[in-house]
């Protein structure tokens, strides 16, 4: 469920791209500082987005930048964003919590060698997770609840695609809105809910063919009543229907976003949500097919 909320780089201004990178690098440093060097591997686009979103919603403007040596590539110097510790700590904590739970989930789903690796990862992430959970108990509670509810919805008797997406959506709704009160809280609840829903569905769309082969649970398989092999015509039709479901989430996301504004990072968020998400839909649903169509 990581790696879907990205910028659409060709559409980004150079200065915006630099600002985005500076937050990305600063988040990586924060992870290293607070949770140890291995946790830098949990760095992801979603949590960078979270850090940016918090900065924008808090209207935290007086940011400064500094050059620091990159830990992964000591020859390179990176520009890091300074004086935004609260937002970065929160994003780093959420990253640890999400990673821990994802590993736990993998252990249940995987087999043999992969499962063994996941178990090792679980050992490493346990202590970091404990620390993050103690620091941000509400976020921990939100993610833990999602995990509890997810299994229930998949096995529930009356299948509704909205119900399947609800746990993830509720989780992100809480995670995004915890640091806020009043109007901002309401705006981020709305944004979080629909973004969580979108993430759940894009993840399901991405796994669709694998799940179909292996016979795993997938909301789209159940919704469209798919079985076995899919032919080209059918595939295209299914992709278009998945795309409609995903498109439907975008207007509420953008509507909520535009109620937060007047910040120098705002255009980056606008790029991620307004152009990055549709681009991701194109990549996942329609570009695999393009690759195949060419002889």
């Amino acid at each position, binding site marked *: 469920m990581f790696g879907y909320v990205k910028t659409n780089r060709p559409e980004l201004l150079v200065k915006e791209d630099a600002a985005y990178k500076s937050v990305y690098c600063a988040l990586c440093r924060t992870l290293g500082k607070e949770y140890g060097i291995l946790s830098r591997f949990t760095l992801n686009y979603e949590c960078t987005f979270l850090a940016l979103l918090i900065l924008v919603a808090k209207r935290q403007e007086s940011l400064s930048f500094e050059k620091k040596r990159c830990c992964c590539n000591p020859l390179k110097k990176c520009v890091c964003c300074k004086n935004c510790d609260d937002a970065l700590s929160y994003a780093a904590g959420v990253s640890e919590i999400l990673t821990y739970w994802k590993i736990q989930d993998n252990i249940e789903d995987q087999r043999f060698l992969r499962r063994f690796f996941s178990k090792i990862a679980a050992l490493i992430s346990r202590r970091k997770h404990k620390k993050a959970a103690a620091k941000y108990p509400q976020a921990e509670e939100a993610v833990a609840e999602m995990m509890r509810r997810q299994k229930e919805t998949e096995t529930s008797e009356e299948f*509704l695609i*909205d119900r399947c997406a609800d746990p993830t959506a509720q989780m992100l709704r809480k995670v995004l809105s915890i640091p806020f009160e009043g109007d901002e809280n309401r705006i981020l609840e709305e944004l979080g809910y629909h973004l969580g829903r979108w993430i759940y569905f894009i993840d399901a769309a991405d796994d669709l063919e694998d799940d179909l082969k292996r016979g795993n649970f997938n909301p789209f398989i159940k919704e469209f009543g798919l079985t076995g092999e899919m032919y080209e015509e059918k595939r295209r039709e299914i992709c278009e229907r998945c*795309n409609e479901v995903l498109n*439907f989430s975008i207007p509420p996301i953008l509507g909520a976003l535009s109620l937060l504004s007047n910040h120098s990072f705002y255009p980056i968020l606008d790029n991620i949500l307004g152009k990055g998400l549709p681009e991701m839909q194109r990549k996942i649903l329609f570009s695999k097919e393009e690759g195949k169509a060419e002889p």
Partner: protein
Amino acid sequence: MNDPYKILGVERSATDAQIKDAYRELAKKYHPDNYSGSPIADLAGEKMKEINEAYDTIMKERKEGTSGPNAYQSAYQSAGAYQSAGAYQSSGSYQKAASDFNDVRRFITQNRIADAEQILNGVPPEKRSAEWYFLKGSVLYRRGWLEEAYRNFSTASSMDPTNMEYRAAMNQATNNRSGNYGYGGYGGYNPNMNRAAGGCNACDVCSSLMCADCCCECMGGDLIRCC
């Protein structure tokens, strides 16, 4: 009060036309249609009000100061198209006279979704009218259960195809799903509209070079020595 120029995001030295453009842009962004059925529609309404006030203040200032009254009048009147927001609100706030579900409509406007849903669920299946399906859809939409909401809207508009309210909800949902969301020209992905038209990837570059090389070779020359 905040600086009206800041609210519209323009410089103090901006011309009347620039201010009008900025105002239109913002009015399009916060237009109530973009927030119909959303639980944060009230916040968008406040923003719209703020923008309208800022625009009025600036235009009033300019009218009293330098520019003549005519310049103000015409700019305001044409931009005033967006003021129809008020007209929308009367339909959006569900205050129609002939309704079987006045309580439900009131709860929905007050954001009391659980109460509205309770009443709706109390209606036995054989008594569910088109309006019931429409309101059920509205409740689900607010809760974020968009697919179910869409199903209910389409049931409502097929049961009563002449009703404008249901049809508007249905049209908007269909538009959003096909990736044609109102503002800014983006809002979802439309697979039937090729956005990457005119694009050129690494493969295209290589194959073009190979073609060029072949052409040159036909004519006795050579573009790429090694092949």
